[in-house]
């Protein structure tokens, strides 16, 4: 309690002292930003390097090829078992004697609260703002294909997790890499696991933390007026610290309960706007399809739309990244593959449904400026994105789109963004911690070191500019996917055996629904 008391005093002191300190150190945000951009530049450049002679980043190709391979290898598992996945989430196949364990629904909801968030609100606006409406088409394609990647990694996550004597579990790509490769007699599993863990820690600090803090600050500053980002960072860092170190579970519990309702409210508002403009739905889809193959004048044309669509979809639903495998491995199911089926719903809900809603609202409310003469989209002054009403981009573009229909919605969206950001941070602090303990072992002191580093990055993320933060966040998360997908290629035959066995038992009735 004494520690909590001191922390609260620190929060109050920081908030009171913030304006004075801001005047004393006007360039602190700039300094943090520059130092961060310089430090992360080479890593970002490597991850987003284009194929020689093209502008197509190799990492986007890597993810698309992987999702396509898994889709074909498992014979469109995302379509064949879609209905079965819903039955599993409903609990139709859950044994009443196992009641009290983590349910399929809970695992799905937990994993979704880590992925649904800014990627769906800010990420889609970035994709549509740069790649045009056509980016939406490629985002949907990426979401549908990504379902197979998610299925593969989550099945393996449960199959190879560690169960400890005290009843707790640890799972995720690092465990299926080391244990799975050993089982198949393949070398290098442990090296991959270590590499993945390093990138997972960077991903947790980047996309799972800095990007969230950054966007949360932008939202708060948009309402209260501009002020230095590090102030938001310090306040956020202290709250995160209280939850992950101080064990203040009540904040996390409240967030976990409010976030799903925010998600539902967001989708409902989007639906209302779309229905209010029902006559434009056909036109909007026309723009999406036309833009997907012609670019409609956006920078980079069709390839630009494709890159943006795939990049933002991957960032949003994290299929192939490996993070969901950590979240899903807590389920104690007798059949690891059932968790794979459930997880394939994630990219569908996250990308195919929610991201598409955001994109449709931005397009339908005509935030993107069209040249009346050519019918193509006009570029902004810098020539790197589509010109928008009031020059909005990122969250502010989505906010303006929703605000054009409901003037009060930007306030709701601001609260939603802050809550989404917070819940994503809590999820990623756990993913990062699991990677950290894989590398350094479990133990209170070791875990505390990671948690403190995590909180420091909240401040850096809130203070830095969006450009370097979003580049580093993407790069770190994609780096996880490089290692994870590589391992999945070797381990996918294990999943196929599980799938064949499960499918045959489902057919014969050995696996059956329980009466509830």
């Amino acid at each position, binding site marked *: 309690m004494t520690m909590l008391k001191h922390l609260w005093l620190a929060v109050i002191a920081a908030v009171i002292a913030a304006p004075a300190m801001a005047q004393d150190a006007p360039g602190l945000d700039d300094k943090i930003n520059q130092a961060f951009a310089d430090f992360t530049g080479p890593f970002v450049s490597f991850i987003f390097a284009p194929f020689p002679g093209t502008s197509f980043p190799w990492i986007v190709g890597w993810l698309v090829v992987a999702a396509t391979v898994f889709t074909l290898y498992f014979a469109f598992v995302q379509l064949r078992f879609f209905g079965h996945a819903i039955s599993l989430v409903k*609990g139709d196949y*859950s044994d*009443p*004697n196992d*009641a*009290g*364990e*983590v*349910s*399929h*629904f*809970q*695992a799905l*909801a*937990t994993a979704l*609260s*880590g992925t649904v968030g800014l990627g769906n609100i800010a990420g889609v606006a970035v994709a549509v703002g740069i790649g045009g409406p056509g980016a939406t088409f490629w985002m949907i394609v990426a979401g549908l294909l990504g379902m197979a990647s998610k299925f593969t990694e989550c099945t393996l996550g449960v199959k190879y997790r560690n169960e400890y004597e*005290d*009843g*707790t*579990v*640890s799972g995720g790509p690092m465990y299926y890499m080391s244990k799975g490769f050993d089982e198949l007699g393949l070398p290098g599993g442990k090296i991959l696991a270590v590499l993945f863990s390093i990138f997972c820690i960077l991903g947790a600090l980047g996309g799972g933390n800095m990007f969230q803090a950054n966007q949360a600050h932008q939202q708060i500053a948009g309402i209260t007026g501009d002020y230095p980002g590090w102030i938001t960072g310090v306040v956020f860092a202290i709250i995160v610290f209280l939850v992950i170190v101080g064990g203040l*579970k009540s904040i*996390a*519990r409240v967030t*976990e*309960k409010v*976030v*799903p309702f925010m998600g539902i409210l967001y989708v409902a508002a989007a639906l209302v706007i779309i229905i209010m403009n029902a006559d434009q739905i056909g036109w909007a889809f026309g723009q999406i399809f036309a833009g997907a193959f012609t670019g409609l004048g956006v920078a980079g044309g069709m390839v630009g739309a494709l890159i943006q669509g795939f990049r933002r979809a991957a960032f949003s639903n994290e299929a192939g990244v490996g993070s969901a495998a*950590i*979240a899903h491995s*807590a*389920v*104690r199911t007798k059949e690891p593959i059932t968790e794979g089926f459930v997880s394939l719903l994630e990219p569908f809900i996250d990308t195919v449904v929610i991201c598409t809603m955001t994109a449709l609202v931005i397009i339908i409310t005509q935030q993107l400026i069209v040249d009346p003469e050519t019918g193509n989209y006009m570029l902004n002054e810098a020539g790197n994105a589509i010109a928008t009403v009031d020059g909005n981009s990122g969250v502010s573009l989505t906010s303006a789109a929703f605000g054009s229909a409901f003037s009060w919605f930007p306030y709701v969206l601001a609260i939603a963004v802050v809550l989404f950001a917070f819940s994503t941070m*809590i*999820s990623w602090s*756990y*993913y990062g911690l699991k990677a950290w303990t894989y590398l350094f072992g479990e133990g209170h002191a070791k875990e505390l070191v990671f948690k403190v580093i995590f909180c420091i990055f909240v401040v850096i993320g809130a203070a830095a500019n969006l450009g370097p933060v979003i580049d580093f966040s993407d790069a770190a998360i994609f780096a996880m996917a490089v290692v994870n997908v590589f391992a999945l290629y070797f381990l996918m035959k294990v999943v196929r055996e599980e799938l064949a066995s499960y499918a045959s038992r489902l057919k014969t009735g050995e696996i059956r629904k329980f009466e*509830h």
Partner: protein
Amino acid sequence: MTTKIVIGLDGTETGEHAIAFAKDLAGRIGTCELLVVYVIEWSPFTFQTPEENALRHKRREEEIELATNRIVTPAVEALTADGYTVQGIVRHGDVAETLNAITVENGGSQIIVGRASADGFKKRLFGSSTQNLVMHADVPVTVVN
């Protein structure tokens, strides 16, 4: 054929009243088996943090152990000492649904529970577990004051 009576306990004093009533009833029926049940309120459709999920199995074991040691076992032992044939069950779930499901699974002929002790907003909105049980059970339910 042996009659099976299910006694639903909730860890409060009203459970004692339910046990007393069941004993009286069993004495009148003759050949009778008692099933002492404690349901730990739990829903598969709540939202949890990743950390809570990771610890869930451990927590479940602890909850079952606590309910067994504190509530079910003492009741079973006391009834056995009185010469009754008794079985104890602890399970997670919605109290009314689970109590009914256990009764049906075990061929119980009736359920005896204590009057609900919960009150307040939740009860007004959703009704108490006892009310739900009385409304939806497949066998007769006796609510003891």
